[in-house]
């Protein structure tokens, strides 16, 4: 993260503090002070391609907002839904062929694959940033790679947090969720001794294996440095892998085979006391027809990932973009649409409807009611704030996308944790694999 970004962010945070002080009325006043005018083209029609769907509330409210936009502007908007992993190839093909949806909601480093095919939205991003307390640093890392031009707007992230059973932690001697890695390991060991172990996915799980990024980063290891030089084979990584090995020794059996749904099932069945996940486990429990599972909801709580020796949060979440394609015939209408969707009147209800599954990219939305209506939602509030981009600390693009999709870090942690390779061997192998992606 460059100094520039951090400074920018601090400015933003100061804005938030002011906003909280002044109360919600501030947004109304600043909206007047801070206006931006997009003039939608005559006869404009928009097509939006978006990922779907983690929670039904998200899509329902999104469509309500879309309908509101159409009512207000007369612009017809067609929204197509795709599974989030299918958006990447479709978006790439659209970018390349120059035909398709006008706006695409994509994930992670998609915007960095074809930056020259995306409409510059700097004016809009700056307007929203000023109005809503500033974009978090991770958003800038993804969408403003040169520190000047915005390739798209951040939409937020699906936070993956620590999900745990309060009663089990208490029984193991922990009143609150540990804040540091050392305490965290102690807790895992105590949980195992009590016969209520934890479990974290070590299979080729696209979402839930992201905790392995946290592990490596929290000890100061990283895949590449600022100049995209592969530096994963480092003493810091080895330390992280040794720590991972200690963690693995406390896990429930079978985590090497776990894909994304496994930890949800095991947790809801009471077989594990702690794992990393979106808010979905809690929601499934809260809304379950099974009284036993429903009862469990009261015992479930969430926490941020512990902080390792580097001393700062090093979380890894699924990030969402909003890209306006350069080929669109209606750039003004598209920008107006995104502006409308990101304004408090639409974005706040949308965050609430998503029930904490999606965290905001703009600091101003930290005061959205969704984060306080249920105190168990609160840890998810800071997902984007505490997040590092995939491919940290290098530049994002095809190399980072390829290395991520190939599970290089996840495989390395799994190899070392399970003892199939020594930490050194695993790190060397990851180094070799990553170098192939970052070769040019």
């Amino acid at each position, binding site marked *: 993260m460059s100094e520039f970004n951090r400074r920018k962010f601090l400015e933003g945070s100061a804005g938030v503090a002011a906003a909280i002080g002044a109360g919600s009325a501030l947004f109304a006043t600043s909206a007047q002070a801070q206006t931006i005018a997009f003039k939608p083209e005559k006869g404009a029609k928009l097509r939006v391609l978006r990922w779907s769907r983690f929670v039904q509330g998200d899509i329902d409210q999104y469509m309500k907002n879309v309908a509101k936009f159409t009512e207000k502007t007369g612009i017809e908007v067609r929204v197509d839904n795709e599974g989030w*992993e299918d958006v*990447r*190839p479709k*978006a*790439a*093909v*659209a*970018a*390349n062929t120059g035909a398709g949806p006008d706006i695409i909601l994509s994930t992670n480093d998609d915007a960095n*694959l*074809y930056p020259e095919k995306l409409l510059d939205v700097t004016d809009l991003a700056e307007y929203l940033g000023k109005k809503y307390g500033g974009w978090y640093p991770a958003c800038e890392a993804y969408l403003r790679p040169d520190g000047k031009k915005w390739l798209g707007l951040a939409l937020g992230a699906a936070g993956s947090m620590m999900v745990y059973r309060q009663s089990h932690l208490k029984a193991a001697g922990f009143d609150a969720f540990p804040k540091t890695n050392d305490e965290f390991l102690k807790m895992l060991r105590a949980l195992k001794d009590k016969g209520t172990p934890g479990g974290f996915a*070590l*299979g*080729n*799980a*696209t979402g839930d294996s992201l905790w392995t990024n946290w592990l490596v980063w929290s000890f100061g290891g990283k895949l590449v440095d600022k100049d995209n030089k592969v530096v994963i084979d480092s003493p810091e990584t080895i330390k992280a892998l040794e720590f991972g090995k200690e963690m693995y020794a406390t896990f*429930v*059996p*079978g*985590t*090497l*085979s*776990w*894909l994304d749904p*496994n930890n949800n*099932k*095991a947790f809801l*069945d009471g*077989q594990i006391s702690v794992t990393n996940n979106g808010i979905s486990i809690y929601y499934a429990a809260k809304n379950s027809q099974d009284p036993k599972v429903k009862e469990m909801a009261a015992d479930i709580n969430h926490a941020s990932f512990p902080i390792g020796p580097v001393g700062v949060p090093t979380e890894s979440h699924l990030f969402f973009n909003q890209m306006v394609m350069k080929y669109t015939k209606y750039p003004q209408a598209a920008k107006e649409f995104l502006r409308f969707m990101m304004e408090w009147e639409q974005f706040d209800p949308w965050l609430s409807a998503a029930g904490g599954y999606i965290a905001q990219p703009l600091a101003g939305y930290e005061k959205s009611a969704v984060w306080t209506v249920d105190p168990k939602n609160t840890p998810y509030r800071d997902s984007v704030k505490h997040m590092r981009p995939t491919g940290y600390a290098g530049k994002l693009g*095809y190399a980072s*996308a*390829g290395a*991520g*999709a*190939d*599970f290089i870090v996840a*495989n390395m942690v*799994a*190899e070392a944790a*399970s003892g*199939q390779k020594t930490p050194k061997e695993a790190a060397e*192998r990851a180094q*070799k*694999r990553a170098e*192939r992606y970052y070769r040019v």
Partner: protein
Amino acid sequence: MRANGKSTMLEKLQNSRNALGLIFMLPAAVLLLVFLTYPLGLGTWLGFTDAKVGRSGVWIGLENYEFLWNDSVTRLALFNTLFYTAVASIVKFFLGLWLAILLNRNLRFKTFFRAVILLPYIVPTALSAIAFWWLYDAQFSVISWVLTRLGLIDRYIDFLGEPWNARFSTIAANVWRGVPFVAITLLAGLQTISPSYYEASAIDGASPWQQFRHVTLPLLTPIIAVVMTFSVLFTFTDFQLIYVITRGGPLNATHLMATLSFQRAISGGALGEGAAISIAMVPFLLAAIMFSYFGLQRRAWQQGGSDK
């Protein structure tokens, strides 16, 4: 004058067997060209470029293949694929042959059993894969549950978490799915064998084994060759089972060429590299076809003779 010339052309055309033949073959040829040759050609071309999803590439010659040759994951995937295909095909062949022979006898409810045997083949692969995924689940496996209840094991079997367990588990799922195809096709083959051969050999005092070895097997080889060719091709290119059950894990122990190709090309965006992995499968598939055509379909061997 002109109209006259036209009609004679048309008449000529209608009377020419060769021209008509070509015209009648045209729809099929177009289909093949558009949906088979073109994609295959494009795939081959992509394999020699550094194309990414959404970005056309430039010619880089054999670079992808050099890269893959030195890539430990690709090598592992090649080994996995060969192992998976070899073991699954052999097991499917013997199980299928055995089932076919059983079903060829005069059983009670013969048609019922024949229908039932096809069930695994009828169920969509993705569905049966999900069923196996549950059977093999680290926490909820019904197999482990039954065995622990019976007191045979004291902890759940790690079906998909240990590399060799995972390989054999996925092979078992593939066999379950593939056996009906082999069994029913071989059954069809068995029914074409005239009973008179068996009667004649029985009169000569042949034992059941001798009948099988010298009557059934030689007459069945053409069918076996075709069935096994298809079976090997389907198994070698398997994707759905692996993608649903393990996504290639644990530690890439069950990644096949097809799943790795998808992971690299679509999820990872490296279209050229993914295409190269797919194309690298072609020589193996060709070898399987050659083997069955030139190896198993030799007349002398089929007619009970031996190679000279």
